[in-house]
């Protein structure tokens, strides 16, 4: 008997396809939920001069942590 493509079955296959597509997207685009891009760019000098207690963007990006 030919299976009927009822809404329930359509929903099931949409969910299954979304799972496969989601995983493929995560792998292909390197998606991870860690890391944060700082709001400003840094020069090599700024990088070297950045120290604890300073207000450089690196610390700003991390909020209060590390201060």
């Amino acid at each position, binding site marked *: 008997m030919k299976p009927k493509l009822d809404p329930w079955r359509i929903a099931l296959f949409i969910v299954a396809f979304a799972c496969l597509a989601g995983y493929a997207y995560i792998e292909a685009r390197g998606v991870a939920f860690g*890391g944060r891009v700082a709001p400003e760019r*840094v020069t090599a000098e700024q990088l070297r001069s950045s120290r604890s207690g300073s207000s450089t963007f690196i610390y700003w990006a991390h909020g209060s942590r590390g201060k």
Partner: protein
Amino acid sequence: MSVAQHMRCTHCGADVEVASALSLVVTCGHCNTLLLRTDVEPEDLGRVALPVQLATRFQRGTEGTYNGVPFTVRGRLQLDHGAGPWNEWAAERADGEWLWIAEAQGELYVFGEAPLTGEAADAARGAAARFPRDLEALHESDLRAGAQLRLGTQTWLVCEVGRGTVLTCDGELPVRPPVGTQTRYVDLGRGERSVATLDLTRAEPELLTGKRVTVDELGLDPATQPEAAATRIEAIRVRCPECDGELVIHDPAHALRVACEHCHAILAPEDGRGAAGAETPPPRRRKGGGVQGLMAGAPKAGPAAGAPKGSAAAGQRLFALLEAQAKVQPRSPIALGTQGTLRGESVTVIGAMQRRVRAGGTWYPWRELLLRRDDGGYWWLVESAGHWALARPIAPAAIEATAAEARLGQVTFRHFTGGKAEVHWVLGEFYWRVGSGDMSTVADYVDPKRARGVSVERTPTELACTSLEHLAGSEVSAAFDLNGALPEPVGVGMLQPNPSRPREAWNVALATLCALIMLRVVFGAMHANEVVYDQDLGPAPATTDAETIDLTEPFELRQARANVRIELTSPGIAQGWLGLTGALVDERTGVVTTFATEAQRYSGVSGGESWSEGRGKGTTLVGSVPSGLYRMRLAVQGYDSGLGRNYHVRVTSQVPRTLWAFLMSLPVALFALVATIRWARFEALRWRDSDHPWGESE
């Protein structure tokens, strides 16, 4: 085939053509005199009635081929066992043998005479001796419907026990028909198609055996069949003797009861066949096209046949008041006379009844609509709380039913409900002697997965089985063009398909997981999973208010928008933690991506039990990092009993996400879990109204 002979009717002198050299009697087509062929002049056996016009596929001269042997229809008997007349056609085979083809309620049966010898003959004589004078006493007999009857080496199921009448005949027959004689018969079945009739009319029982066949199996020549128009029976209009309202009788040849739509009085035909108090008990509904054969009992010599009772032309039949249904308000869910096309068959709603069973002091009613198909067969539409099912007759012997389950072919059905069903009210016309208060024992079995079921009903005289098939209300509405004017379904129907299919959902979930694992393997092969930085650093500060800053050597991330894993390990840490606040700095663009992780390890003894916490390791994954030349700034804080520990940092690019392969299967698994819960709730509602509600011990 034979060359036609001619003889002169001894009654009217008309020329009578005789096509078969082997026929014993022939009916004069001019005066309906039954003529017995002899060596000299034919003997006048008396006049017989004109047969009632019935929907049929046969006529004299119809040719076909059964089991590879050609045959020609020569004549017919018309019989009645109390459920309206039907035809049994006598067909002469090319090898000189005769077949009997019975047409009963749209079903076809082919019979041949079977000799009764030895133990089978003894068993048949025993059955004849046990045949009760009063059929009501059958429930105490081992000859009742549903019992097993062993004839020689074969065991048969008793499907019906009763008395009948040979109404009339026409054409040529190989036997002398006992027209007008009351007969005694036991209809038998074995398996889905084998049928037999044990005729106990005469002193010596006789047996006809055969099987249910399809039209195709008879290989009928369309050129020799009756015109299509002749197979359709015209409705008649009569007046109700109680209220003088006009009634349309759609199936006049078979209407043994008519319940007036206007005053609800139950009427019976005045020709006597359906009269109250007739000797044969009321046959039950949904007759499975039982064998109904009588020819084994047809005497080959005997008194002249007279005109049978009840032979009035259908269109002239009148009806008399039998019973008033004063205390009920019958209302058919679909108006009587409504025509429609259901499952490819043209049908007409000709009757409706409400039946009910009583359980726990409560009546549980349902309605059944009698549908007449154009080919003369009957179906039923069953409506219960707005849920619909199509009921079609099946051979009782095809079902093996117990209290717990019933088997039909390879399908097993679970018992759902059972009990004594009472006819509450009737409306319209019926082909058996139905009346309010009629009782039968009913057992319904279901296979919810297939939305199908079987119903087994029995009285002492008859066993009848039907297959049940769920119909959506929309399908019923469309079949009869009702524009949705049907009762709304309440609760869950006995056969209603469960919209949730957990097994299918779990299969899809498993297939999705397998596909995800395959994708993981593919991406594992595609991803470099390359360690781009791997260095020992330190020591970390010994106090929490201090911080060390390290700038790493540059390293390259070759794959654009790949993830990057940073692992911090401090193998020497014993009682403390190490926090790393880092930044990936693209040396060419100055874009900074920050991250943080920490490693810790604590251990001790508490209550005599040693414990530990942390592994001295921390990991973080940074997503979609652009390709380029990178340097890391690492700010480290820590504390470990006043000691500054060394630590190790490793950076890996393009890391496959095994965990996510499994995590992404969870939504489908969740779908399947929800489907399982919904399925269980639906089934609990379905079985709540059964004899086996979920959660109750049996």
